[in-house]
């Protein structure tokens, strides 16, 4: 039997047995883990709300030799991020973020940077534009996973991108801007204003609260949503469940 002390954020949980939950965690030093929280579904559970999604806890886990799941033996909450569960828009955005992390990472692959990004996005969410949070998180996450966008030079031939014209070709398949000579290498590339590329650079390099969102017009929003969406889906199989939810949600509030 081996004991582990981990700092981890709860991504989601699912029911297990009569009264237990399996909690999917994203830990600082061990990456994504699955652990059983005994009795967590009972009203009087000692875990209270600490096993709810987005909670940041210090936990004691142990695992028997050869077992698939960890067991939680102790837990204290560092930050419950309870405001993310008290406002519907924050809740939906945070759900989108944890689903992304869950889909893009494998179990037991450490990636401390992603853990810090989760804490950063959760703490800064109340002060930020929800669309921008989503886009910036996607760009940062893909960059951290090895799919960094190529924005200062052509993603195919590497020639320095020149801002001679107002618009530029963006290819989600090639992962960035492409020069006129390479256009034929992705027939699905789209023409976008250079302004979008500046936004993408900001999304990748700036803290969520530092991104200047004032100038993002409604039509820019549509354009950014579309290119970031196709960039994401080129690295992700299948639709996100939260996307389906967001679509139903938007119909109802409009």
């Amino acid at each position, binding site marked *: 039997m081996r004991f582990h002390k981990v700092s981890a954020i709860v991504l989601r949980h699912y029911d297990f047995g009569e009264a237990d939950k399996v909690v999917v965690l994203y830990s600082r030093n061990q990456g994504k883990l699955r652990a059983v929280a005994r009795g967590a579904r009972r009203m009087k559970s000692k875990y*209270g*709300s600490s096993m709810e999604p987005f909670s940041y806890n210090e936990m004691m886990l142990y695992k028997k030799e050869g077992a698939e799941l960890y067991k939680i033996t102790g837990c204290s909450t560092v930050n419950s991020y309870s405001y993310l569960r008290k406002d519907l828009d924050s809740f939906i955005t945070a759900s989108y973020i944890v689903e992304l992390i869950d889909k893009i990472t494998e179990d037991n692959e450490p990636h401390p940077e992603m853990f810090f990004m989760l804490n950063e996005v959760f703490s800064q969410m109340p002060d930020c534009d929800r669309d921008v949070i989503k886009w910036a998180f996607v760009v940062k996450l893909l960059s951290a996973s090895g799919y960094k966008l190529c924005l200062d030079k052509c993603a195919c031939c590497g020639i320095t991108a020149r801002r001679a014209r107002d618009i530029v070709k963006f290819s989600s398949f090639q992962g960035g801007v492409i020069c006129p000579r390479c256009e034929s290498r992705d027939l699905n590339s789209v023409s976008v204003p250079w302004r979008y590329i500046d936004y993408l650079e900001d999304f990748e390099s700036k803290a969520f609260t530092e991104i200047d969102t004032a100038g993002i017009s409604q039509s820019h929003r549509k354009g950014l949503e579309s290119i970031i969406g196709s960039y994401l889906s080129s690295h992700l199989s299948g639709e996100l469940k939260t996307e389906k939810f967001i679509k139903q949600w938007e119909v109802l509030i409009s």
Partner: protein
Amino acid sequence: MAGYSRALQELISALNKLPGIGPKTAQRLAFYILKSSKEDAVGLSDSIVRARERLKYCSVCGSITEKDPCDYCQSPGRDKSVICVVELPQDIFVIEKTRGFKGVYHVLMGALSPLDGVGPDDLKIKQLLERIKKGGVKEIIVATNPNVEGEATAMYLSRLIHPLNIKVTRLAHGIPMGGDLEYADEVTLAMALEGRTEI
């Protein structure tokens, strides 16, 4: 399950399909059923068939009932202007046990859960709105579970129903009775403080 006769294998795998029953428990239950008297075994199977045949969901509120509309919806003694919204039919029995509620119910058949892809269209929310639009409703009590999904559902319903000028209330959150303050987690405690009442 090699070596088991076909009938036994079928029984075990049928029990295994029940929620919370793993293969080991399914085996134990199967052997228990075989050991019990024939009347008991037949009684069990009959009651499953009977329940399945006679019971249905009430077309108004979604509770489990033998007649449609159900007793809650038909009884003149119940106040139709107060609707208590619950996640599942079994939640009605829990609230009924308190004997403190004399209104009617509405079963959503789940809770909103973006992470599981359960959106507004997957729940009986439209049906609730239709009931409200028929008139006579003064208050909606949201009695969804005190967890993320239940809270999100409550917030969503309140956003949807408020503009219709109907009071939307939520079950109070707090420390469980018989519990110790020192064991309450901070979120529960913060909610209990917010929802404190004058005595």
